[in-house]
């Protein structure tokens, strides 16, 4: 009776394991399908934001060129600061994640 129960549990465990393995493979494949759409969205968004920035910079010319230059340098400074923060901390963050 006990061995019958053990057999049932082993079969059940095998089925569950198989289900998990299949679902993991499907999830990996689906994630791979998600990436191109996500990259495309990011690219379009980057272009749109860049164009919007250009509109803002050009709007500065409406008053005087120095305002346009000021807006441009603010944009440049923010971008450079963002990249600096990203690449100076990325190793530490990667190391933290690697632990888990």
């Amino acid at each position, binding site marked *: 009776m006990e061995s019958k129960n053990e057999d049932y549990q082993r079969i059940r465990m095998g089925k*569950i394991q198989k*289900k998990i393995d299949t679902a993991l493979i499907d999830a990996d494949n689906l994630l791979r399908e998600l990436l191109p759409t996500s990259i495309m969205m990011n690219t379009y968004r980057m272009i749109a934001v860049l164009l919007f920035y250009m509109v803002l910079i050009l709007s500065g010319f409406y008053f005087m060129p120095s305002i346009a230059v000021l807006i441009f340098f603010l944009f440049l400074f923010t971008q450079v600061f963002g990249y600096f923060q990203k690449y100076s901390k990325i190793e530490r963050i990667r190391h933290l994640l*690697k632990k888990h």
Partner: protein
Amino acid sequence: MLHQPLKKKIKKSKNIIESVYEDVSDIYPDLFVSDKVVGYGAIELDPVDLNDTRIAKLESEMKNINYRSEAWMLESVFLGGLAFSGFLTVASANFLGKEPEVFSEFLRHFKIYYEKCFQNEITSWVTQIGNHFFRNDLYILIMLLCLLSSVFFLLVLVLRFRLNSLTLSMDHLIRILNIFNQKKMSFLI
């Protein structure tokens, strides 16, 4: 007992599908060996826990994509609307009915500016702006950029629908994974 880090894989041979364990200690040299801490800050991981970390990774990636796409959607709605209203405002306030002439004038100015600056020094690209472009050119350029910007924001919104359907399927799979993983854990405990 000492375990090597193993990865489960589905193997197909002669129409028989079976799950096998593959040693991944070469791929993940700093991944763990059960009962032993390897390297700085390493955490012990049994082969049986590999699924959990994979599920956690999938969930994190999923959340990351979801949050980002939601932020992009909000940004697209507001900035796209703003850009298009900017286009309409400039168009209605300045060139009602005269757009084709002003646009061709702008193109002509641009062509002359490009030809002159191409032959002269590099600094002329900046110094010659004031000599070749006028206020109407500025308006038409702003109009054009506003329109393009709103088109790209709209494309982001269109792509969001595709992403939405995929993320829903992914969410369903992650739920299934969590449910079955819990069932497996109840067997193991």
